[in-house]
């Protein structure tokens, strides 16, 4: 019988360092695997989380190591919740330019928020835009 981790959580504030962010993401991915998550779900979660963490460190905190990024993760076999917040000024998340338009499709930037919204079940920003909460429910397997 496979033992599945029923509940795991993580709540840390880290300096704005991409390597520290990456280590935290790897911890989450390991916890998801231990809770029985697999396949496309894992990819989608990692993709969305990479975007959120990089945005917080690079755009929110401008890579200032004196500024902290808070990462809160909660994993069960059916649901994952991820909260990422930074100490930056935020951004206008209600008016993010559509990167799929003809004018922007060739630009090498601006797809992070779109990917987060498409890959996650729910993405909620606070008013200021310096905190995001992403939720995903585990995909149901379609029987063959």
């Amino acid at each position, binding site marked *: 019988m496979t033992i599945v981790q029923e509940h795991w959580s993580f709540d840390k504030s880290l300096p704005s360092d*991409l390597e520290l962010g*990456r280590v935290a993401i790897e911890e989450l991915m390991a916890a998801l695997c231990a809770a029985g998550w697999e396949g*496309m779900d894992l*990819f*989608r979660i*990692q*993709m969305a989380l*990479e*975007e959120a963490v*990089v945005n917080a460190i690079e755009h929110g905190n401008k890579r200032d190591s004196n500024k902290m990024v808070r990462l809160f993760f909660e994993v069960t076999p059916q649901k994952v919740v991820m909260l990422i917040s930074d100490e930056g000024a935020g951004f206008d998340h209600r008016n993010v330019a559509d*990167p*799929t338009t003809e004018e922007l*499709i*060739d*630009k*090498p*930037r601006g*797809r*992070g928020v*779109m*990917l987060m919204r*498409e*890959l996650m079940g729910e993405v909620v920003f606070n008013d200021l835009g310096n905190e995001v909460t992403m939720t995903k429910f585990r995909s149901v397997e379609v029987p063959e």
Partner: protein
Amino acid sequence: MSTHRRITVSDDGGVSVIRFVDKKIVDSGSIEQLGEELNSLVTVDKRSMILLNFDTVEFMSSAALNKLISLNTKVKAAAGRLKLCCLRAEIKEVFTITRLDRVFDLRKTEADAIAAFKL
């Protein structure tokens, strides 16, 4: 010829077939280096037919995707041709979501892509 640490380069009938050293293309330093190496294929090596083979790539962040977009711009400016092949379903989904499947020529196999260069 430029030196490579993030990619390997081989030749197939005039097509430069590029493979990626990293299975997970996510580290920002590696992505910067990858971008430089890809761009040098065009700007230094003057290669005009480039195929990116993703068969070993399990994950790539949007920062890596941005490097591909920059490469595509350089290839087009040099009147060259760029194709991608062997993308896993998860990575192909990212191209679909971002509509980049309309910007890049995506092929299922390397053989398909090589044949398409000859058209």
